[in-house]
């Protein structure tokens, strides 16, 4: 437990010290929210009686989980693996599971702060009317963060080099965020894109966010979306456990 707290503290220090990482995974979604909301926030979503601001908040919570827990975590772990830091950690008496759980929890903490920032901004600056089941929101955010973290760790295995990690991760998570409706509602997409969107875990996470943050649903009344997110998370976990590597590729 002392070891775990030590590692968690260190991970927080490492995250906030790394300005590039903190910018792209933490600050960028917040900035994007402010930008998009300033431009499109007053539009009205077709077939719904809510401002686009409200939709954007749910979308940005989704984008935030994808950028922090999925993309950020995958990039950090690939860089640490390929530079040999993971190998060095394995030479110490720190249990590997303690290390990984601390890394994941540290990501969850970052995402929690990000989600809080987005919600406060939405409420105070953009006047979004929240109808939120708070305990369900916390549960849903945690479910999303853990599921996407598992997927992020699973993604590290096929990535071959530290240099390529950002490129590969961006090529996956940016289209996913777009298709899943992080930036607008997916109902406006052509049919074939909608079909793809119907598979993506982020689509379901964002749907869950809309239900829980804006429509006063509980996580239980929107259980279909929650189950899909969790199922993706379990798949990610199984893949991560089976394929995770500690050592860099042999030169």
């Amino acid at each position, binding site marked *: 437990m002392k070891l775990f707290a030590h590692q968690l503290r260190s991970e927080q220090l*490492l995250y906030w010290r790394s300005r590039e990482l903190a910018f792209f995974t933490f600050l960028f979604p917040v900035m994007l929210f402010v930008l998009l909301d300033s431009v499109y926030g007053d539009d009205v979503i077709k077939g719904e009686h809510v401002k686009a601001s409200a939709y954007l908040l749910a979308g940005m919570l989704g984008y935030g989980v994808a950028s922090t827990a999925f993309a950020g975590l995958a990039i950090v772990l690939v860089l640490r693996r390929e530079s040999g830091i993971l*190998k*060095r950690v394995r*030479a110490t*008496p*720190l249990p590997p599971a303690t290390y990984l759980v601390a890394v994941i929890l540290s990501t969850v903490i970052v995402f929690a702060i990000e989600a809080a920032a987005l919600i406060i901004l939405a409420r105070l600056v953009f006047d979004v009317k929240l109808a939120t089941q708070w305990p369900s929101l916390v549960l849903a955010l945690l479910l999303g963060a853990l599921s996407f973290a598992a997927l992020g760790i699973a993604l590290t295995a096929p990535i071959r080099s530290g240099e390529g990690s950002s490129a590969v991760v961006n090529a996956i998570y940016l289209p996913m965020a777009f298709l899943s409706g992080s930036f607008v509602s997916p109902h406006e997409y052509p049919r074939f894109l909608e079909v793809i969107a119907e598979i993506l875990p982020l689509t379901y996470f964002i749907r869950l966010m809309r239900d829980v943050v804006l429509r006063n649903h509980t996580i239980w009344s929107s259980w279909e979306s929650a189950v899909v997110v969790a199922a993706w998370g379990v798949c990610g976990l199984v893949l991560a456990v089976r394929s995770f590597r500690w050592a860099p590729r042999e030169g």
Partner: protein
Amino acid sequence: MPAITVTDLHKSYGAYEALRGIDFEIETGEVFGLLGPNGAGKTSTVEILEGYRRRDGGTVSVLGEDPELAGLDWRQRIGVVLQSGALYQNLTVLESLELFAGYYERPGHVDDVIELVGLAEKRDARVRTLSGGQKRRLDLALGLIGNPEVLFLDEPTTGFDPAARRAAWNVIRSLRTLGKTILLTTHYLDEAEQLSDRVAVLREGTIVAIGRPAELSGAAPATEIRYQLNGEDVLVSTHEPTRVLHELTSEALAEGRELEGLSVRRPTLEEIYLALTEERGE
């Protein structure tokens, strides 16, 4: 009891036999150098002893345990400095050491270790601002911070300038006085000679010579005696330099000649090493 025992160690990568049955023992408190060209099997050997790689045959014991099966308690007692040491670039020297010190039950004192590797002036500098040599010394410090009984150093000074190498050697010498058992790999002869109590020379996965650096020079190429006779260079290679030299000088004295340009050279460890490690058939 020896700190490290290696018996008939084998390792293959696909069809390539990296280690073809090597044996050695390292006593507690000994500094043992594993010397050889790139690809001779040094890193394979060390990484098997560190528990990173599985062996294909033979037995290995480090502090009485098989590294493949040893647990985290065993890791409390060993220190590892990898060939390419990775560091957290955004931490300071002090923070890096505090982070790793936290993993051990009985870590060394952080400031003492910083002092030992000569980074006191850089204590609060970010790792990314350090020079290559300073980063390597931090690597060494991270290997030492757990206060290990056995320390593995894989090519600790590769890429250093001469001054940085001498500084690193002094650090390693001071570790010896602390009674640590050290396994050092290097492809620098002078390094092995300067630091090691004993050296094993590795070539193509086999140990071709093992012993104290001074003994190794007795094992191989002959002493060279050169002089000039009627303007021509003469070279005599011999394993009995005393007798040959005595004959030469007696003869010259009797004939009232001078042996122009007389020189006697013992082979350097460099030449011995080259003779031991050169390709077969050459």
